[in-house]
């Protein structure tokens, strides 16, 4: 395939720059990867050149400081990056340079869009976005034909440089025009989500969280578990974090406060950084990981490890932390429930694989089954948690 041509003189940014291990495997390995990581959502990141895709990927998944992204070279050929070995989220980036037409026959759209959960399209808000919208329309139409279940997310990016009013204005404009485009094409039923993002604050993390959450069929269950866990433990707010990327997989249903989220992000950073100094090997984050920070406004940040990828960060008032035993017990209940949720899925998946069912049916089937089973789980957890309070 043309875009895998390694002789191309201009290479992308250095591969060993990030923290996480890279795995730039070719397309041949693709089927394998998708089958063994079925439980993880897969996301494509597209957009015009210089719209900030590489920066987003670097900042969110490789802990690069936003200022350093200035020095990223532009990605001049299609580059595919997998982040699947360190994060709960399996993430795959396709950078599409403007000159490559993805409608060309060598482009295997079935394979690309077929296994993909969400398509994130990045639009540079500071630039003229006419071209981007055209590109976006074509992409959506193509992808929708291949895979109608795909979620379309639009990141109106680089909004740090523009004022609140023009932010709103461009969001409204982009929304209006893209919807018009789609309804012209007869695709009214496609739903687009818009996010205003910037790598210089946490909005990009939040937007990514929203994207990822849509791809997790267990989200209502996780959310319910948190909704139960929180009031029973006297906690104000809790986030279930993907440790590597600092995006939150789930949170309770109370409104997300940006500052609280940023605090939790920073806490995870701090814990990982500190423990990677003092821990023996690569296990910067393991089952023993927990951390407690007392803020000077009588608030406590409490972090506990849930599993290899996930951590729970809670914000609670200091007086409620007197009952740490209760919180810890409730947390153990919560953790068990979560592992049950994912085990169920795994079990279910194996059964289905044994039965050699069709792959396509698998996805939908799972979501429903697990959803139902977990409602029963909820009540079990509740009764255990309630005893302690």
């Amino acid at each position, binding site marked *: 395939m043309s875009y895998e041509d390694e002789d191309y003189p201009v290479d992308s940014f250095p591969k060993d720059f990030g923290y996480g291990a890279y795995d730039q495997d070719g397309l041949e390995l693709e089927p394998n990867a998708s089958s063994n990581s079925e439980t993880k959502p897969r996301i494509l990141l597209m957009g015009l050149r210089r719209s900030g895709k590489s920066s987003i990927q670097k900042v969110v998944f490789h802990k690069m400081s936003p200022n350093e992204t200035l020095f990223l070279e532009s990605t001049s050929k299609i580059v595919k990056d997998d982040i699947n070995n360190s994060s709960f989220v399996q993430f795959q980036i396709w950078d599409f340079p403007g000159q490559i037409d993805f409608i060309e026959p060598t482009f295997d759209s079935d394979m690309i869009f077929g296994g993909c959960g969400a398509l994130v399209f990045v639009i540079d808000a500071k630039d003229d976005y006419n071209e981007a919208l055209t590109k976006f329309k074509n992409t959506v139409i193509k992808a929708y034909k291949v895979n109608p279940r795909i979620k379309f997310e639009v990141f109106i990016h680089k909004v740090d440089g523009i004022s609140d009013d023009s932010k*709103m204005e461009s969001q409204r404009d982009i929304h209006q025009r893209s919807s018009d485009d789609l309804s012209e094409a007869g695709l009214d039923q496609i739903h687009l989500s818009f996010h205003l993002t910037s790598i210089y604050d946490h909005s990009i993390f939040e937007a990514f969280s929203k994207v990822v959450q849509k791809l997790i069929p267990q989200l209502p269950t996780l959310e319910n578990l948190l909704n139960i866990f929180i009031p029973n433990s006297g906690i104000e707010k809790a986030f279930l974090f993907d440790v590597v990327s600092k995006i939150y997989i789930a949170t309770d249903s109370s409104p997300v406060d940006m500052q609280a989220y940023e605090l939790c992000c920073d806490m995870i950073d701090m814990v990982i950084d500190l423990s990677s100094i003092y821990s023996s090997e690569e296990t910067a984050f393991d089952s023993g990981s927990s951390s407690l920070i007392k803020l000077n406004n009588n608030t406590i940040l409490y972090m506990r490890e849930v599993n290899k990828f996930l951590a729970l960060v809670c914000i609670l008032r200091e007086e409620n932390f007197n009952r740490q035993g209760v919180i810890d017990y409730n947390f153990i209940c919560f953790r068990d429930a979560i592992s049950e949720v994912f085990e169920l899925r795994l079990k279910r998946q194996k059964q289905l694989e044994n039965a050699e069912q069709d792959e396509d049916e698998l996805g939908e089937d799972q979501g429903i089954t697990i959803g139902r089973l977990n409602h029963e789980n909820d009540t079990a957890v509740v009764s255990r948690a309630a005893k302690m309070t």
Partner: protein
Amino acid sequence: MLHSLEYAYPSTVSLRICLEGHANALALNKEHNQIAVAGRSLLKVYSIDSDGFTEVCNMRVGKNQNLSYSSNDVAWSTLDSNILATAATNGVVSVWDLSKFGRHKQLLVYNEHERTAHTVTFHSTEPNILISGSQDGTIKCFDIRSDTSVNTYFSNSESVRDVKFSPHSQNVFSAVSENGTVQLWDMRKWDKCMVQFTAHSGPIYTCDWHPTRNWLATGSRDKQIKVWNMDGRASLEYTIHTIAVVGRVKWRPERTFHIASCALVVDYSIHVWDIRRPYIPFASFNEHTNVTTDIAWQGSDSHCLLSTSKDSSLYKHAFEDATRPALSANAQGASFGRHGDISFANKIKEYTNKSSGVSNTKTTNFISRRKSNVPGNMQFHLDHSKMYMFMLKNSNMASGSDYPAHDVTTELRVHDCFIGCAKELLLSGKKLAELCEHNADISRKYGKHNATTLWNFIKLFYGTSHFEPPFEHRSSFSNQKNPMSSRRATQVASDWAPHEQGQELNGNSQETQHEAADASEDGDELGGGGKQHPPPTSSVILSETQIISEITFDNFELLRNGFIYVGPADVTKALAFPDTALHHDVQAARPQLDLKASDHEKSPPPHVPSILKVSHVPPIPMWEPHQFVADALMLQNDVGDVQTALIILIVLGEARKLLPIEDAVVEHWFHTYVDQLHRYELWNEACEVINRAWVRSVRQLNQQSTVMHTNCGECGRPLGGNVGWYCDKCKSMQSAKCCVCGLIVRGVYAWCQGCSHGGHIEHLQQYFAKHSKCPKCGHLCAFS
């Protein structure tokens, strides 16, 4: 009416409700005499009395730990006083009947939302219809006569945070969601919303319809409350900027422009805003000690506000008790303009005499340009206000008239100045001092006073060429710090001594030199920074003895403070002890030292006898301004005047090597300046600068990108082959030959662009001295 009478006088009534957990929401019944509060472990109804609340009903009795009871929102039927609805965190919407008993109170349970239900509300005229909004992005409509939902509206967003029926049209309700959009739905059309628009750049948490006008207020995480006019296409009417994330908003009854809001975090107060005054609340209630969760006006009574908070309390606020932040705000404002103008606004007081007196005293110094009275009744403002604008009065009338013109042309003058300087500043051709003088004049002419000073300064320092010897000295004393070598240093210093006259004279000359240096620094504006940094190298030499003696006698205090001075002589120090430290001999000082040291322990203030022999004299301390000049140039560059900085460097000639400026920086300056010149199309000046450059990459600028097209003298075709002088077309080598002598030209080939003939430059020179036409074709070549 009874209510208003009762609450005209009394103060805020508060009641603490429930011990564990807090209320998330409250609702009033249609008579406005009962209030329902709902929370995680709480669902109670109180009746509102004149002096407090009394519990009417508790629906969370017993040990029923059903999740469906932990409510996010509660609504009271607008027509039936016995019907309540709650929305629970697990997505269950329950309908309660207060007339029933025990478990039967919970009339209906709709378990249809997949995720948390955030809000529930009853239809204003249809008693059986209620709608709920959920985190799963759906809005469901229920009829309490049926046990499943009647309709589901898919909002196509992550989550619906609030839904409200419009009081103005029967079937319309609004829904606000976390992606910042507002939707209007017609209840009968479940497939598509009527209106959808993006209202905020963050999640919207609340909305409320104006009771009389067709306005919708929305509150968002972006800390703003926006008021939308929903007639036709939604248009923004007002924006209120609050200090925290807006949690709830409620229009105040009977007051068209008042709206109450409470924050989700940070701010515990409830604010009532006048929407025409968006930056300061009209009234505030500060009773709560934690975040307020919900607010409601008691029916149509605009003086009574009920609120619940995370501090587990339920308050009834009387409007009389509210604080009025707007009243305590400073009603005066003043601001400086760009050119020293001042604008001043104040409230017009009743005592008009006094205020006019104040303004008179002010206007003695300023020319009052404009006075305008803003009529107070136009806007919300409680008071009449005045605004003054003052302009600086210029003492000089001539310049005063010139002043506004200057403002307009400032930008232009910057360009003129640059071009003028580029053309008129001399780079070479005279002595350094004269160049400096000339350039200083030019700079003054264009008003660049900094540059003028700098040029004068350069002239002072580098105009005379006395800098070579000190430069050598400096290198020979690079290792003064080493005490072992300082003895050798003494030797060297003694060797120089002959060309000084004597110790006394020497001491004086040293001092005067320093004074001179100081004076020159003082005289210069830019030298202000230089004083803070003593010159890096001083020529005062310390021998071993000196060091010891200084420590022993003079720096006794310093020594006691744990501070021993051993570094290279600091100028100020050497000046401070001019005739103690320098007058010791090695032989004489040694025994004396100990003796004196013991003496001085008794009498610390040291007194050094002047009988000691002098072994050496320090050389003249040449203060080398290189570092300082370099700093000045850097500064000049930093303030945007690379022109002066670079031209000084060029003019300095060889002396520039003394300046500690990195080559890369200089190269950068060159490129910048040449680039600037090119933009002004000053090609000649740019060329001259390039020619004067000593940086290789700059010099090469002139040799790049110059393409010369040649063509064959025989056939006129362009010569484009591998060999420049060979014509592919006519296979001739004529172009390589001189058209005067006929020989092949090696080296410079002069060439007429008109007829493509040429040859040896000296031959052509001779030829064209006599002729005017081409030797080959008779073309009228213009030889220059």
